């Protein structure tokens, strides 16, 4: 069950402050990295929504992200539509694609679900890679950014674009948190804990799972549209399963099923990679060892471990107060 605990609020506020401070002091490349993190945070939150709370460990979120990016690029570059329509189309397309995958794979579980989502993601990748319409492996260049000049904001400026992405990542978190607190979110967690019981209660389980997957897909599509605008270019690599794998690593690294963990994991993995890569081209080795160390050091992910310790202390304090109060009443 999801609760917006004080620890979660504190962590999010802290991360947000860190992002804002960083955006002010960072050089040009720092802003690029911050933008990358903010975009990945949105997909990671989307993934944690279904994986952490719905038990649907998806290996196709890279593809959903890529579908959003390609929908945005196709609408703006190939059809010449306005970027705002492109954004709506990206969210819608990814949402629809996710709903179909979610509906078809709803009967599979565990590793079978992982592999089924992988299959659909890879089919999308192979299609885009070979499609001449979408530029094949060359990708599509010349993707424009949203035009917010009406509000006096020039998104071609890295600083403004980074802030927009951070703002949208915050909105994504708030949306996900609100959804999880709603009846829908509680049902989703119920399905994860005991699907048979939920089915026995007469709940159309597959419809719920597909809907959750669709919402998650819409968020991934939003992130994809941002990524297309960030690089002003889309290429098939966006849909590849390795990106889905990295997203899963981010969520687990931060702490699966905590929502904040997704944010922490995305930020940590990207920064770790860039920082290590400054010193050695063998950054895979270092990142790999860190992943192993995190599991050996507790196995709940970084934020997950922190939350676990905090909750235990809360419980202990409550128990202590209860114990103190009992004699007086006795």
């Amino acid at each position: 069950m999801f609760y917006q605990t004080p620890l979660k609020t504190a962590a999010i506020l802290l991360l947000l402050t860190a992002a804002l401070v960083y955006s002010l002091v960072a050089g040009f490349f720092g802003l690029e990295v911050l933008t990358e993190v903010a975009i990945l945070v949105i997909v990671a939150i989307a993934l944690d929504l279904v994986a952490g709370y719905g038990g649907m460990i998806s290996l196709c979120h890279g593809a959903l992200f890529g579908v959003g990016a390609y929908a945005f690029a196709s609408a703006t570059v190939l059809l010449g539509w306005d970027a705002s329509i492109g954004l709506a189309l990206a969210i819608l397309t990814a949402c629809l694609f996710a709903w179909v995958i979610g509906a078809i794979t709803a009967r599979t579980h565990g590793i079978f679900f992982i592999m089924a989502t992988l299959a659909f993601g890879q089919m999308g990748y192979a299609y885009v890679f070979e499609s001449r319409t979408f530029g094949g492996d060359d990708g599509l260049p010349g993707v424009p950014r949203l035009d917010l000049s009406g509000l006096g904001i020039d998104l071609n400026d890295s600083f403004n674009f980074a802030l927009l992405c951070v703002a949208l990542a915050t909105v994504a978190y708030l949306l996900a948190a609100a959804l999880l607190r709603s009846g829908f979110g509680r049902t989703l967690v119920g399905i994860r804990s005991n699907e048979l019981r939920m089915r026995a209660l007469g709940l159309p389980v597959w419809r719920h799972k597909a809907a959750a997957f669709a919402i998650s897909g819409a968020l991934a599509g939003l992130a994809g549209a941002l990524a297309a605008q960030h690089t002003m270019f889309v290429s098939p690599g966006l849909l590849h399963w390795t990106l889905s794998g990295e997203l899963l690593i981010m969520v687990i690294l931060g702490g699966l099923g905590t929502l904040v963990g997704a944010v922490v994991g995305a930020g940590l993995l990207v920064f770790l990679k860039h920082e290590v890569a400054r010193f050695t081209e063998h950054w895979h080795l270092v990142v790999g060892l860190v992943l192993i160390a995190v599991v050996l050091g507790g196995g709940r992910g970084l934020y997950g471990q922190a939350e676990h310790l905090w909750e235990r202390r809360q419980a202990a304090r409550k128990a202590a107060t209860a114990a103190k109060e009992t004699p007086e009443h006795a």
Partner: protein
Amino acid sequence: MTADLSFWAIQALNALQLSMLLFLLSVGLTVIFGLMHFVNLAHGSLYALGAFVGVTAAGLAGSYWAAFVAAPLVVMLVGILLYLTLIRRLRSAGPMNQVLVTFGLIFVFLDVFSIGWGDIALGLAEPELFSGRTEIFGIVYPTYRLFVIGVGLAVLGILAVIVSRTQVGAVIRAGVDNDAMAACVGINVERVFFWAFCVGCALAGLAGVVAAPVLSVTTDMGTAILIPTLIVVVIGGLGSLKGAIVGSLMIGFVQTFGAVLAPELAAILIYALLAGVLILRPAGLFPARG
């Protein structure tokens, strides 16, 4: 297209050869999956390690056969090391932690290969004994590919006998079916796990050294083979020898004949097959546990 019968016979042998390579890899993975419920994503890296060790061993000893012996052994030793340091601890840590750790291992191996053997693609020469071509049933076919098929069939035969006819096989089947119950009736499940893991690793190393003369040896060969292997395991059903055989044959034949009959769909076919199987049979074709 070609109505020539020998054309189709050669393509069938191509398919069988690919199937046997996939079988060597997937059988180890499926047993580890089925028996230990352990998600070993680094299985492909062990396969690549087999190929790299093979290149070095063949270079040192000047013979392919040195590689053929050394690769499975070294990979098994590395497997034992991994088991003792990491995998035993992770047995109860849940699938997500296993994914994270074995993904970390993929990263580590990637750079170990790059540092140890360089980034330039390598090759391993096929053994003199099996170089050239052989004529069977009026078809001329590369001898080494026949050897690959032979190794696959031999491993398949040995495993089939062990699993179905021996006490060890009965213990493994019991472990896959219900490990808690197996432990209750006095089977040392942990030891069975250990040996199954070792054999799985050795087979991955064997697959690597057998595949190396046909393919090139590159740092990313392990990650490239991981997905097809997982697909075989999942199509067949976790922990089932029969599943690994059927899954390997399906993927091998679909990939080969897809390349011939529908080349523009070649990249999509195995994923379509996977999706199709899972929609109809959400737990694979031969689920080992009821």
